């Protein structure tokens, strides 16, 4: 109970965010009631990016120290990242149907999340093609870092494809000032909640994966 306090806090916190997102915040101009999607869609996108970054960090650590527990962490982060990438893509697509009247039109944001999705998929395709854990860890880490090196180029290239229709209330500093205080509060609260949720899922996944490795190794002896 005592060590789990933050989990209960997250439970309440997320519930508060959900209530606030529906009742407390005003709707943005032109988006109507679909504004409420943003409090869940944007934080998922944030978790996707965060997971990708964390996976790259643990890949570097693996290559430096060659200890398998770093690989487990890199894999766990990527797994959660993949789930959130799918959630972001699907929720964004449904929302786009409502506002832009089409599920998919290669908007820059859609393209970027799709690229991340592809990178994650390729990462797991690579992992599944290698039997030996050390070799798998090594090659997957290298791939993860190569992918990480190309991301800045995507950021440069993608916005040049089409003009974005995507509203970005937080990233655009100009609009940030105009953003409603209540919206901003719920937004930031939701970012916090999603980050903690990510941490929880991450530690859980790491525990399961290391347990699996531990058992397999012990059984062998």
């Amino acid at each position, binding site marked *: 109970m005592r060590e789990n306090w933050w989990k209960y806090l997250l439970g309440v916190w997320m*519930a*508060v965010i959900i209530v606030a997102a529906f009742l407390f915040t005003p709707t943005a101009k032109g988006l109507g009631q679909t504004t409420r999607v943003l409090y869940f869609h944007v934080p998922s996108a944030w978790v996707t990016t965060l997971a990708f970054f964390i996976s790259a960090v643990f890949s570097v650590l693996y290559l430096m120290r060659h200890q398998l527990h770093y690989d487990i962490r890199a894999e766990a982060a990527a797994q959660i990242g993949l789930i959130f990438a799918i959630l972001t893509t699907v929720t964004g697509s449904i929302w786009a149907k409502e506002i832009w009247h089409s599920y998919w039109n290669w908007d820059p944001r859609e393209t970027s999340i799709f690229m991340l999705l592809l990178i994650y998929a390729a990462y797991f395709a690579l992992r599944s093609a290698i039997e030996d854990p050390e070799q798998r860890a090594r090659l997957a880490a290298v791939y993860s870092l190569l992918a990480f090196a190309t991301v800045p180029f995507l950021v440069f290239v993608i916005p040049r494809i089409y003009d974005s229709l995507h509203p970005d209330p937080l990233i655009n500093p100009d609009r940030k000032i105009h953003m409603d205080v*209540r919206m901003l*509060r719920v937004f930031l609260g939701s970012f*916090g909640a999603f980050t903690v949720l990510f941490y929880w*899922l991450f530690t*859980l996944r790491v525990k399961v994966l290391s*347990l699996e490795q531990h058992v397999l190794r012990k059984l062998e002896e």
Partner: protein
Amino acid sequence: MALATFIIGLLNPDTTKALIATSNNEVGQNIYIVLIINLIIWAGIFFFLMSLDQKVKKLNERIQSLFNK
């Protein structure tokens, strides 16, 4: 800190205004339904994660004691 300001924000007269504003809206009734569905889904996920957490913890202890005999 953030939590405190947030809860105070919720208790603001503004909130009640927002509540009234939305309930007067034509989508007023539906938004409550969507909200409740969302809360139920979150509660489901939360308790599932909690039980998974406990399971993993117990499994970990059992495996440790099994192999350390």
